[in-house]
Structures are given as structure tokens and as C-alpha cells.
């Protein structure tokens, strides 16, 4: 006990260091928390901006007129504010895309998860990933200058347009700007998203289920389709919903290849504008804060976010309803 004062000093030094260290820990944790909070702030900022910047528009136009109006020409005189044509364009291009992406994505996922040899899977997955990583403006170029000309060639199989040859069956011409070409390209772009998430879901199905199925004499296809697919349906639905969100929000492919004219039509052979391409078209010009153009693109953006939110909520409940746990 000779060194009593020294021990006291050491202990107090220890506590000082500990306090210092604890303080540093708190500081770091707060910093990390703030970083994590930034994503929440982003969401809040998006919602607040979309609502506040489009509110002035709804003082001029009633929401009923906005949703049910069949004519979209806000920058003309007299202005007309019916968003239905834009929603229609979004709907048609998305439907075309999903007609391509859902079958292709599901089949690819089922094949990669249940049929393909590991070697093939190792090659196919990166290819699909690269397909998903190509910039959308490049896909737009592809849709306008490759897919649409090919479609036009197919549309006149014997050197004469189907619309002239068989006008009763094909009353419409396939125009240079149309919704079919970009829709198909969009579908190809979305396919990897659907296939990769669906495949993960299918591979997560326990192997005992497959073995049980094989033991009863089922073939590979029967096992995949009647056992694995239903067991993974929750994740598969989630992938479809993500695909729908991407199709609805896709901008550049449609902006390049579908024309920018708002048209109320369900015919994919015709050009049209979507919600997203309207935003692009207006922002290509000068849009100072507070002008009609400025307000309408925020209103369009709000519509877009509400649409994707709607699909996400539906998807959430669907995939919960069908979830299987093992």
C-alpha cells in the first residue's frame, strides 16, 4: 500500500479516458444515425415538394377534372388538364412491357433455379445482370432505330402493309413512333429484375419439398410448376410488383421512341406520351419556378408516385397473403 496515491491517479486517469472514449462513441453513433436519417428526410422532401408545388394547380383545376378529363394540353390556350391520356400511355407501354417481362422472367427464373446446370447458371446470371445495367437511353436508341424498324418490316410481311392488305383485321398503321417497340424493349430491360428476384425466391424453397415431389414420381417440370412455384409465390409476386413499378416509372425509352404527343388511345401501334415523358418534355424547355408548366410536372410526378405506391401496397398485401413458411 505504498503506492496508494499512484493507484488513485491511475484510476482517475482510467476513468477520464473511459469518459472520453464513451463520449467519442456517442458522437460517432449520432453521426451514423444522422446519415441513416438522410434517407427518411429524402422521402419526406419528395412528398412535401410534390404536394406543395402542385397545390397551386389544384386551385385552378378540380381534382375530379384532373383525374377524369380526357384532354391533356396544359400549355395551350385554352388549357386542358385531364391527365387520363398520360395515364393511358403509361398503362399501354407498361402492359406491353409486362406481357414480355413476366413470362420471360418467370420462365428464365424457373429454368435457372430448377433445370440449369450450375455452369450454365454461372454464365447466364451475369449476362442477365448486364442486360439490366445498360443505360435506358441506349435502350431508347435501340427501340427507335432497331426494334421499331424490325416491327415495321414484320408488319408488312409480303411487301405490303397489313393495314392496307387486310384493313378489316388490321385497321391501324404501325407508325415510326409507337408504344409497341418501346414497350417490348422495356419488357426486355425488366426481365432480369423479375428473373433474379424470382429465382432467389425459388431457390429458397427447402429441398425436402422437391425430394418429396420427386418421390411421388413427379417430373422436373411438375415439381417446378406445381411445388416450387406455389411455394415461392410470395417472392415471385414481389418481383412482379417491382417490375410493374419500373415499367410505370421508366422514362427514357418511351421519351425517345414513343413520340411525345398525349393521346387517349389503347392502341399500342400509335404514338403517345406517358406521365414520365410529359415531365421530360416540359423540362427540356425552360420552366421557372411557379409557372403552369412547373406546377403540372409536379402534379404529374405526384400521380406517378401515388401509382407506384398503390402497386407497392397491393404487392405487399398479396405477397403476405400467399406467404408460405417452412
Amino acid at each position, binding site marked *: 500500500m505504498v503506492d496508494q496515491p499512484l493507484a488513485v491517479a491511475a484510476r482517475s486517469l482510467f476513468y477520464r479516458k473511459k469518459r472520453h472514449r464513451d463520449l467519442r462513441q456517442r458522437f460517432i453513433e449520432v453521426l*451514423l444515425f444522422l*446519415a441513416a436519417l438522410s434517407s427518411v428526410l429524402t*422521402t419526406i*422532401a*419528395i412528398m412535401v415538394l410534390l404536394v406543395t408545388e402542385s397545390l397551386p394547380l389544384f386551385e385552378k383545376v378540380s381534382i375530379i377534372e384532373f383525374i377524369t378529363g380526357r384532354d391533356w394540353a396544359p400549355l395551350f390556350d385554352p388549357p386542358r388538364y385531364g391527365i387520363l391520356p398520360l395515364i393511358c400511355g403509361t398503362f399501354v407501354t407498361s402492359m406491353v412491357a409486362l406481357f414480355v417481362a413476366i413470362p420471360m422472367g418467370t420462365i428464365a427464373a424457373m429454368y435457372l433455379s430448377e*433445370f440449369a446446370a450450375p455452369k450454365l447458371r454461372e454464365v447466364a446470371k*451475369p449476362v442477365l445482370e448486364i442486360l439490366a445495367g445498360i*443505360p435506358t437511353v441506349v435502350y431508347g436508341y435501340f427501340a427507335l432505330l432497331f426494334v421499331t424498324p424490325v416491327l415495321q418490316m414484320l408488319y408488312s410481311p409480303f411487301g405490303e402493309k397489313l393495314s392496307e392488305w387486310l384493313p378489316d383485321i388490321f385497321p391501324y398503321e404501325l407508325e415510326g413512333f409507337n408504344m409497341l417497340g418501346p414497350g417490348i424493349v422495356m419488357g426486355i430491360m425488366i426481365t432480369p429484375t423479375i428473373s433474379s428476384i424470382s429465382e432467389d425466391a425459388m431457390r429458397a424453397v427447402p429441398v425436402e419439398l422437391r425430394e418429396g415431389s420427386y418421390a411421388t414420381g413427379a417430373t422436373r417440370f411438375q415439381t417446378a410448376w406445381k411445388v416450387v412455384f406455389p411455394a415461392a409465390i410470395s417472392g415471385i409476386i414481389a418481383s412482379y410488383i417491382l417490375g410493374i413499378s419500373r415499367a410505370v416509372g421508366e422514362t*427514357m425509352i418511351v421519351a425517345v421512341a414513343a413520340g411525345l404527343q398525349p393521346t387517349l388511345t389503347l392502341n399500342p401501334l400509335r404514338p403517345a406520351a406517358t406521365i414520365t415523358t410529359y415531365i*421530360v418534355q416540359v423540362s427540356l424547355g425552360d420552366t421557372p419556378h411557379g409557372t403552369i408548366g412547373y406546377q403540372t410536372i409536379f402534379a404529374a410526378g405526384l400521380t406517378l408516385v401515388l401509382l407506384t405506391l398503390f402497386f407497392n401496397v397491393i404487392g405487399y398485401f398479396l405477397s403476405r397473403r400467399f406467404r408460405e413458411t417452412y
Partner: protein
Amino acid sequence: MQGSLAGVRGNIQRRQLWSAIFAIVGLLVLFIAIIVLLALILQLAIQGVPRLSWAFFTSFPSSKAEEAGILSALVGTALVMLVTAFTAIPIGIASGIYLEEYARKNWIAALIEINVTNLAGVPSIVYGLLAMGLFKSALQLGESVLTAGLTLALLILPVVIVTTREALRAIPSGLREAAYALGASKWQMVWDHILPYASGSILTGIIIGLSRAIGETAPLITIGALTFISFLPPSPFKSDFPFLSFDWVRSPFTVMPIQMFNWVSRPEPEFQLNAAAAGVILVALTLLMNGLAIYLRYRFRKGVKW
């Protein structure tokens, strides 16, 4: 039919046939994907590669298609990516660390988690509207490199956060306990032990996020990226003290995808050749980055055996 051996055999054969047919269909779908990828690349290459020359890389945009080049777009892309990387990487990794290592299981953590998932599904053009209202109007940052970089950073933040979390989650808890046992604080444990092991996977996520940002067009159109920039932003290096200048972040800009969009939307076929050439460079960049990410992931997965 039931009971007879021939009937059972026929039934089995029929089902096997369906199985074989599906296998062929599945292969076909994969082939279609590969063929589309090849068609896209070939179409771009056939149209665009003849336009690729030294002059194309060192010229400014021009109203004459043959004299137009991508110098300002290339420099713009590089500068915007610099801002994006410097913002998204620290914030993304920090958020990932917080959510995975620090967050308690309470409603705030749940909220942040749901929020990150939802943000990943928000259409990119909506980020453009956010930038237009927040960075451009409210914060008065203008149509600048800074606005563009911040916008793209917000856009790729969810990618960085999600991959950081997955990387951290893959590290066995024994490593954490070992660090604690030696008296490390929580931050020392994360910084000195967990992060170095996770850095490979995090890097993969960052590369994928940046490759997405390079190709992103729509949000930058909304904030008013110009397509006809015939000058370069001020240089970041100066001859006098402090040798670095940040004037370039306030400079107007154009980027590769916007330049390509401008060219492809012109009716003259000469400009569409330019668009193809710009497309070749864009696709080469994204292929390179994606390839690097795939390779890195492959290597790290092979290398580490816990």
C-alpha cells in the same frame, strides 16, 4: 388405361416430354436475352464505331454532325460522378453501419428500413423533381455539377446502403466478439475489424451504384442539364495557394447520356450516328463497371471461407 403397364409408361413418357419441352423453352428464353444483348451491341457498334476518332473525343458539340464531339459530356460525367461518389459513399456506408450494427430494434429503425426499401422503388424522374424543387429552387444551387451530383447520390444511396448491410451481415459474429473480448470499443470493432472484411462486397455495391448513376438521364433532364456546352468547367487545380478550386461544382454541365439523348432525338441521320458513337462509349463504360463488379464478387466469394 389405368393399371396397364403400357398406360403407365405412356403417362410417364408424356410427362417427361413436357419436362423436356419446358427445358427447351427455358433455354430459348435465355438465348433470346443473349441475342437481344448482342443485337443491341452490334447495332450500336456498326453505327457508332466508325464515328469514334480522336476528334470525336476532343471536340465540343456542334450544329454540324461531323464536327460534333463529346469532350464536354465526358468531362461533365467525370465531374458529376466525383460529386456523387463523394456524397453517396460515406453517407451510404454510414447508414448501412448504423442500421446493421447500431440500431436497436425499435420503430425508428423499422421506419428507416422500410423507407430505404421504398426509396429504391421510386422512379428516377421523381428524384429529378426533388432536385428541381429542393436543390435548384430552394437551395439556389442552380443547374450545376453540384446539383446533378447530389441528385444522383440520393438516387444510388439505397443501393449502397443495402449492399453495405448485406456485406456486414455476412460477417460471422465470432469476429465481433473476439474484438470485444480484447477490449475494443464498438466503433473500434466496426472500423478495425468488420469493415476491412466487408470492404470487398461494399466495393461491389458502390461500383454497381455508380454504373447506374453514369447511365441515368431522366433526373438530369429535369434539373435542366444543357446539351450544348461548348466550354469546360473551371479546372479544379490552380497554380497559386491552396492549389485546389471548387468553382467547377457551380458550373453548368452536360453528361454523356444527355448528349446521346439530344442526338438521338434529332431527325437527321448524321446525328443518330453520333448518338450511336456516344452509346458505344456509354455501354462500354457500364459493361466495364458491371464486369468489374461481377468479377470482384466472384473473387471475394471464392476467397473467404469462414
